[in-house]
Structures are given as C-alpha cells and as structure tokens.
C-alpha cells in the first residue's frame, strides 16, 4: 500500500444566508503510512474544514462536502454509509483539537471519555475499558494515572488535558491521526513536550499524522511533507527539506521569511503585504494576486493550474508554468 490517504479535488462549501463560501476548493494531497504531513496556511484558509471533511464531520446546515474523493486504504470515505464511517472514526482515523480546554466534555470523567471509544470499537466491557484508559494515560506520560482517570477535565492543567486528548485519540491505535493545531493553545515548554510525545508515539504505533498548524517552526520539527494552503486551495506541496530550502510559490516564500514570528496580533504576515481575501469577495484569477509582487496579467484573469516541477514538488503558480511567459 503506497498511500494511506489520498485526498482528491475535495470541495466543501458553507451555505450562509448571504452567499456560498467555498471553504475548501479542490484540495488534493497524499499521506503515506507513518508519514507526518504538515498542513499550513494563514487563519481561515480552510485547514480545519479539510480535516473535518476527511472525517465527514461537517454539519449540514450550513456546510456540505460537494465533491472529490477521500481514499483511505483504497476506500472512498465519501461513499461509505454513515454506519461504516462510524467504524472508521475514532478507530482507524482519530482527531485531536486545538483547545484541550473545550474539547473534553466537562461533565464526564477522563476515564469514561477515554474508555468510550475503546468500548465502542473493541467491544470490551466497562471495567476493562477503564483499565485500558489507565494504560493509555500512562503511555502519554501522565503521572498518577490511576487517580487522573477518575478526574474531571477541569481538575487537569492544559498540558495534561491535551495528553488526555491524545490518549483518547490513540486508544484504538488509529493508522491516521489528524491533529488540528494541537499545541497552539499551550505554552512553549508544554508545547515542546507534547510534540516530543507525538513524535515518540507515532514511532511506537506506526501512525501517520496530518499535522495542522500555522507555525512553520513546528512544521520544520515534525513534518516529512508539507502542504501549503491559501484561501481554500493548495498552493504548494513538497518534502519538508525542499520546501524550506527551495520554496517556489511567492506565498510560501513569504511565509518562510516571516518565520519565526509568523503572525503579529492582527494576523498580518511580516513579509506578505495585505490580508487573506474575504471568502465572499475572492479576486478573479489567482486568489493570491492582490498580495503578490510577481503578479502578471494572466494571474488577474485565470486561476493557475498545478504544475509538478519535480517529483513530489507541486506548485500552483504561473511563474513555474514553463510555456506561459516570464515573470515581470
């Protein structure tokens, strides 16, 4: 099996009162077994919507997956019945989220919440799932796990909660983990510990990770392959080494230059002028053209196609489209 997951031309729209928002607009990328794929881009570019679409957790109304394929171990998740999909969620694909504060249910014990997926997917009974929950908490490095398993989320610190979330996600040894900004809400030391833990566990259970973040520093540390998104589209994807040494798309170049202080308070990138376009007023042509120093006439008219410049390195930009003119 060469690929664990192949996302092809995924399209997810939100139908709001005023308009249709194309939050994910033809996204494609691949994940190999055991590989860590970083998904980066500014706030609002559609990273979370991609991950929820893979899990088919987009709620209608207002959101709906309108096209594409999500091939997981050869099966198209978008074509499965809801029952078949439920057997994949939490079992073969698991998720963790940005806010460990809000992603655990405040009224149930940690052990109950971890044990839930174990009981569901592995058909074990209550006491056994409880014991398994303790084991999982040990695995993610929580001290006194026999006691913590009985705690409620508010009794734990942010870092401990995120560890508990990870324990929950990994409890059925999924082959793919989707981590949506798992460390953004944590302070730097805790962040480093959680990243270390994820790297370690990924080795232990040979699990692939889609790692979503807008922190390129974290990507450099964690990812094998990087997918850069802008306004609902993938603008570039490459191996992590290639991406940082030879970024092609002007947006990627700007992102890397802006590192390490990726965004200031207002979310404005240092080296890229302007802001992400309002999803309701997308510019004609390439969505990035209003902010691009190299924009050509054609960029204002047509969305550029994706070109594979080298095996495994694709970019959506006219500058690298050999038969279409030179940069100004």
């Amino acid at each position: 099996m060469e690929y664990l997951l192949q996302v092809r031309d995924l399209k997810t729209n939100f139908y709001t009162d005023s308009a249709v928002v194309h939050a994910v607009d033809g996204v494609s990328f691949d994940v190999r077994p055991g590989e860590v794929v970083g998904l980066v881009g500014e706030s609002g570019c559609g990273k979370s919507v991609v991950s929820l679409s893979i899990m088919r957790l987009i709620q209608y109304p207002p959101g709906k997956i309108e096209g594409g394929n999500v091939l997981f171990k050869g099966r198209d998740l978008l074509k499965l019945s809801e029952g078949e999909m439920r057997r994949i969620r939490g079992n073969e694909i698991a998720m963790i989220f940005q806010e460990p504060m809000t992603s655990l249910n405040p009224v149930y014990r940690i052990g109950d919440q971890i044990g839930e997926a174990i009981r569901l997917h592995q058909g074990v009974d209550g006491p056994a799932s409880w014991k398994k929950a303790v084991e999982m908490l040990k695995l993610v490095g929580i001290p006194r796990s026999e006691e913590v398993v009985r705690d409620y989320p508010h009794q734990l610190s942010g870092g401990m909660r995120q560890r508990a979330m990870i324990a929950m996600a990994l409890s059925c040894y999924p082959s793919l983990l989707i981590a949506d900004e798992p460390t953004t809400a944590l302070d730097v030391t805790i962040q480093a510990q959680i990243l270390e833990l994820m790297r370690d566990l990924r080795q232990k259970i040979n699990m692939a990770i889609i790692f979503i973040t807008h922190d390129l520093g974290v990507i450099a540390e964690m990812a094998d392959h990087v997918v850069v998104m802008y306004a609902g589209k993938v603008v570039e994807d490459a191996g992590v080494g290639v991406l940082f040494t030879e970024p092609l798309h002007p947006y990627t170049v700007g992102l890397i230059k802006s590192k390490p202080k990726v965004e200031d308070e207002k979310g404005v990138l240092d080296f890229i002028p302007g802001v992400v376009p309002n999803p309701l007023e997308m510019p004609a042509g390439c969505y990035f053209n209003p902010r691009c120093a190299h924009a050509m006439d054609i960029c204002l008219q047509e969305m550029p196609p994706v070109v594979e410049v080298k095996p495994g390195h694709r970019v959506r930009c006219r500058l690298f489209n050999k038969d279409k003119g030179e940069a100004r």
Partner: protein
Amino acid sequence: MKRLLLSIPVLIGVSILVFSIVRFIPGDPARAIAGVHASPQHIEQVRRELLLDEGLHVQYYVYMSNLFQGDLGQSTFSRRPVATELRERFPNTVRLSVAAMVVATAVGMTAGIISATRRYSIFDYSSMVGALIGVAAPVFWLGVMFQLLFAVQLGWLPSGGMGTFRHLILPALTLGLATAALIARITRSSMLDVLRQDYITTARSKGLIERVVTYKHALKNALIPVVTVMGLQFGTLLGGAVLVETVFSWPGIGRLMVDSILARDYPVVQGAVLLLAVTFVLINLLVDVIYAFLDPRISYGTREVE
C-alpha cells in the same frame, strides 16, 4: 452547605414580611386578625395574645417562638388552627404543582431537544410558535379556555373539583403549559449552544452514534441552565397555582389563600404565604443539589471561575 446557610437570612426576611402584613395594615390589627364580626371582648383577647401593646421586637420574638412550635394562630373564619388548615390543603397543591412540573418537563424538554437537533424543520418552527403562545397566554385565560373546550364542549374531563386522576389533567395542563413553553425554549437554545462546542465534535470523532452524542454528551451539559430555569419557574408555578386552583375549584393552598383574603382571614393568609415561601426556598436548595450532580465543576455551592 453554604447554600443551606444562605437560605436562613432569606427565611428570616420572609418571616418579617409576613409578620408585618398584619401589623402594618391600616386600622386596628387586632380587629383585622379577630375578624370583622368579632365581639369587642374577642378583639381585646387577640390584642393580648399578640402583645400588640408591647414593642415590635417583643411581638416578633413571640411570633417566631410560636412559629417554631408550629403555632400559626387560629383561623378567624373556621376557628381552627391555621396549621391544620394548611396541612389539609398543602398536599393538594403539591400534587398539582408536581403534576404540572412533570407535564412541563416532559413536554418542554422533548420539544426543545427535537427542535435543537432538527433545527429549521417544520417541527422546530411549529413547536417554537407554540412555545411563544404558551408563554404569552395568561394562565387564567388558558384555564377557562380548557374548561370550555374539554369540559363544556367535548365533555371529556371534569371542569373542576378534585378526586380522580381525570380531575387532575386539566389543572395540571393549564398550570404546566407556560412552564413547558419556557423549558422548551431554554432547552432548545441551550442544546444548540452545546452542540456547537468542541467536545461534541470530539464525541462524534470517536465514532459515536448521534443518539449517544445528543443524549449523553450534549444533554447533560445543556440541562444545567434548564435546571436553573426550572427552579426559578417553580415560584411562578406556585403563583400560578393560586389562579388555577381558583379556576378549577382545586382545594389547595392557593385557593385557601384567595378565600382567606376575601374573608379577611389574616392568620391563614400569613400562614399560606409563609408556607409557599418556605417551599420555594426548599426547592431552590434542591436545585443546587441537582446542579452539583450535573456539573462536577460545582462543589459546595461555589462555581469555579474559568
């Protein structure tokens, strides 16, 4: 525990209020308490019993010590001890209010949950319009309408009185409907709010079926504000009971109170008000207990600040 202590000043306040009802009515309190048709000797006797010639603090002290001995005075109308009158009537009010609350909770929560999970469906729209009407309709009017429709026109149910279970249906519906409407609205908005939370996505991402997500993960969180409203609403319900008991000739505390006011039977009015107030306070204590059960973040009556 803290809440238990807090309710003591509330009860003292209520006792002072009830104590003052009679002391500060215009005219001669002794005359008022003894009744309009009392003989001068009797009025004199009441004056002595109530120590009306002493200072207010002495009066209050005696009043309270009598209260603690279960002595609420005597009805000027029936000449029976107030406590006996109340003891006879109170269970009827409890039965009516509990039945109304059961109706309100069952109807209100079901409608609220379905509305929230099938948002913008026909069911959602119609139940919310129904809830709006339910909240807006005066209890008194509703009771009379029910009587006209189900008792007079259709003849399905008795129009008043107490006795069989069938006698309970209309008053309980009348009394419970407004609360049902309110509970439906609160449940809906609370559920919608909870269903947007991250932990609901977490629950779904585990592969749980939607029913478990709704009833296990969402409902328990959503109930926290609903229980608050229910507790507060019990006060309104007791107030509504006064009207409903009158409309349906239901022999409860509310009816007793109305009759006593009309008969200027002040000791009974005092006793009834006191009893309703104490009931209200006790219910709110119960609500706090339920709270702590629903929300582990609450302990000993203090809510943890985020």
